[in-house]
């Protein structure tokens, strides 16, 4: 089933006036970009892929602007000048206690904090950098959604997730706080509905205000319920109740932000649900582009699969599971299988970049120019669970924060320092340390 959405009256008026001069666009120009020409918002997207990368076919030999596309990076050819390849970064907080490399490193993927080893009761890691940015933007009431968390895979729902590490570590990269994973959505249609449904283009201002008042009254009611419970609950219960309060606060912000005019761009049709990873990944990429373009959010994370995924990529002619191949044991056939999967992953990322590059914003730049799109995996080599020399790509100019089109080689600098740079570029001022080992911004990103 798909829905068509109407443009709001104000958008149509605006479109008729200002936009006709621009080249024919698939979608309308976002409101924010239009409101302040020359100062389009910056966005951050994160693309996570599990089980590491076969690095010999990934790493370019030359550094600087003369880097060459390696077999795995070949799909980036159309956007090569928009991409920074960063070699030699390390994320040591991802090292587990004993075994459990995938879950521990995935928990540290955006938090750069060491996950406490537990199967449940008392899991704890650290706030992730995307959520630091989301909180910052939320405090400025920048967009309707502080961030968007997407992924292809729900959990398998059986057994251990990874050697004594709780499943939230393996299934989430976004953490709103040390004990609060931010659940991801795995159905494109549900994401679309969340972004665009529930908006009535014919509502009057009075109706909108009433809806807002009713929403707030429900929130007040349940908040009182939760407050009354506080005195009668134990300590772990209070932790859960605290999560509830956080949810209620966020809901309240959204209710307050109910607008008369709705989305300021044409979202087109809702994607159908489809479990084919090729179809689903593209749908998720399109949703990120749409959400950015409509300025519904400026931060998005995406998990191509969960940590330690053993997905079978049959359409690539590979009968075995991804995780099984990643324990390659230096067998050539496994290397080849991994390189094939890696390249497909880079293709998906390249698709996202090309879509973003094709969208012109109000400041004359492309959406990609105004964004930073980060790609990496929780480990480098999946066989030895290497936490050094991670496979890192960063695309876009971040509105001038980055100088892409280069390969920069580092020497074991903490990944956390890259995140400090990204957070600063996204406007989080005053941040100079991050995670367990971030000491300051990473050099050489802007040239």
């Amino acid at each position, binding site marked *: 089933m798909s829905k068509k959405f109407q443009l709001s009256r104000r958008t149509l008026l605006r479109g008729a006036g200002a936009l006709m001069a621009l080249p024919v666009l698939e979608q309308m120009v976002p409101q924010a970009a239009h409101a302040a020409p020359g100062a389009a918002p910056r966005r951050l997207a994160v693309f996570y892929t599990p089980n590491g990368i076969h690095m010999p076919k990934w790493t370019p030999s030359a550094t600087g602007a003369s880097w060459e596309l390696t077999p795995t990076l070949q799909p980036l050819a159309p956007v090569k000048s928009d991409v920074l390849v960063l070699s030699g970064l390390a994320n040591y907080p991802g090292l587990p206690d004993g075994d459990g490399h995938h879950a521990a490193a995935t928990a540290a993927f955006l938090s750069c904090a060491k996950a406490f080893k537990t199967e449940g009761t008392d899991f704890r890691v650290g706030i992730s950098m995307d959520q630091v940015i989301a909180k910052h933007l939320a405090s400025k009431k920048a967009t309707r959604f502080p961030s968007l968390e997407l992924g292809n895979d729900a959990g398998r729902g059986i057994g251990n997730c990874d050697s004594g590490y709780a499943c939230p570590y393996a299934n989430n990269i976004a953490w709103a706080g040390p004990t609060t994973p931010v659940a991801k959505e795995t159905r494109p249609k549900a994401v679309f509905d969340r972004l665009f449904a529930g908006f009535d283009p014919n509502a009057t201002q009075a109706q909108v205000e009433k809806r807002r008042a009713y929403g707030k009254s429900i929130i007040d009611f349940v908040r009182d319920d939760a407050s009354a419970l506080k005195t009668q609950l134990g300590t772990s219960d*209070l932790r859960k109740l605290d999560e509830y309060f956080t949810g209620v606060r966020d809901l309240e912000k959204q209710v307050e932000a109910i607008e008369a005019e709705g989305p300021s761009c044409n979202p087109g049709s809702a994607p159908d649900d489809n479990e084919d990873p090729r179809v689903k990944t593209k749908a998720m990429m399109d949703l990120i582009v749409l959400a950015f373009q409509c300025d519904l959010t400026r931060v998005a994370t995406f998990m191509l699969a969960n940590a330690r995924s053993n997905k079978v990529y049959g359409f690539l002619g590979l*009968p075995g599971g991804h995780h099984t191949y990643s324990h390659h044991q230096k067998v050539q056939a496994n290397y080849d299988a991994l390189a094939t999967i890696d390249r497909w992953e880079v293709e998906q990322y390249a698709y996202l970049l090309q879509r973003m590059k094709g969208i012109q914003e109000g400041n004359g730049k492309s959406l990609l120019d105004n964004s930073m799109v980060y790609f990496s995996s929780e480990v480098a080599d999946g066989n030895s669970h290497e936490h050094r020399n991670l496979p890192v790509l960063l695309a876009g100019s971040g509105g001038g924060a980055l100088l892409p089109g280069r390969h920069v080689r580092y020497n074991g600098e903490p990944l956390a320092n890259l995140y400090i740079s990204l957070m600063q570029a996204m406007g989080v001022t005053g941040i100079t340390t991050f995670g367990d080992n971030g000491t300051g911004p990473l050099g050489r990103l802007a040239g």
Partner: protein
Amino acid sequence: MKPRLRRGRSWRMLAGAGCALLLAGCDGDNLPRARVLPGDMPGPDIPPPPPPGTQQPMDECKDVPKDPGSVTLHRLNRAEYDATVRDLLGDTTRPARDFPTDDHGYGFDNNADVLSMSPLLMEKYSTAAEKLVEAAWKKGLFNTCALDGADPKPCARDLLSRFARRAWRRPVTKDEVDRLVDFVALAQRHGDPAEAGVKLALRSVLVSPHFLFRVEKDPDPKSATPHRLDDFELATRLSYFLWSSMPDEALLSAAEAGRLSDPRELEAQVRRMLADPKANALVENFAGQWLYTRALDTAEPDRTLYGTFNEDLRKAMRQETELVFREFITGNHKLRELVDAPFTYVNDALATHYGLPLPGSSTPRRVDLSRHPERAGIFGHGSLLTVTSNPDRTSPVQRGVWVLEQLLCMPPPPPPPDVENLPPPLTPDMTMRERMALHRSSPACQGCHRMMDPLGLALENYDPIGRWRLQEVSGAPVDATGELPDGNILDGSEAMRRFVKSDPKLPACFTEHLLTYALGRGMSKADECAVKEMAATAEASGGRLSDYILSIVLSDHFTQRRGETEAWQP
């Protein structure tokens, strides 16, 4: 450390130490022998385990103080939410499909500690509540009284107090009802009819923490002294255990009358509830995770090698395990017979797959297996055999680990880095056994694999999609023998069934899994004695699944709770 039950005789410590030493470069031939491996002979200082069915709580448990533990405030998971709105509002649209997936902990997705409440989920709850109320209103579910335009409050009060009592699974206070009825005035102030206010109140009930969480109060949250749950809390625990859903009117009335503190009443309720179709939730949500049948949805056997596997077969396999388990819940079979039950449920497609006589039906039929012992019990189920295989080959390791973890509660330590996989065949016709022997010849692997491999190797006559076979893909004949650490040989799947069935650890292990699910919390060392006692009680009552369920429901662990002593800092 993994806070899992540690056995009195420390199997895991020995095993772990063995692996660690090997990694440190020790000679694999001088392994410290783990003495309580399956089939191992006990050492001179350790008395032999009691024969099956006569296991008694160990003496060391005699003076251990009983501690029911503390269960964290439990958010409804997706299955529970859907079942609850089905029973509360007759809504079968499964709105929780739009919610983010619940994480699981200790093997189950109803683990209260990992059931987080994210802002996204809160948003989904709010959206779902609005839709649910509108749909129920349209269906006339709240037409129990007329909302009089001039004086709507009496009807609103009646309707809302009855709804909140069911939704919150307890009596509601006058103050709570007053606050709900206030929505009527709010709507009227905005120029809307009373109906709009009642709908707002109904939505509030569904977003309230009293609906979304299973609230169990502690009179003194900082005290570790156990206290009994009140009857409503107990009714709720029971209905979410057996039905994954809210208590029905009969259970709620029993709680209201204070009858649930009577063990005979509790037992009668359990028997009544197990006979209800809603007890299928135990099959889907407990057995689906304990027996791994849920993983069947995402299993992807290599179609080039195993092209007969298709969606119909996937469904039939799942139904087989569900129907067998369902019969165990209500029937007269002992827990141990899950391992070798001489019956199953197949349709024509699955019977063909298994090489059984066709039942002549596309829907599953119960068939007798007394002449097909190779299909007896869960080890003959295509579901289990498929999900414990790799896409392109069997995995005796995964099958062995499944038995150790899910049936004997002896999870082996995880493999060290760099050596997770079988080495590739050196020659094209190399057998699985030869490849595994090669794998075991690596010192880093040997210590752990001698525990896992024999159980899995004995199932080698089942291919990766559960078909009986005498040859491997390479053409090599299947050799389904496994050598136990004590030197004894398990010759094929029937010997393996007998061996697992007689293992004295089976009752306590099953109890541990079932109790983990029943309480929604992981087990710790402190629970060990209670688990053993519940298992012994269940075995003494006949050893059926219903005996285990009753043993748990009537235990202090299930009927009591306590506060926590440590403080939580946000």
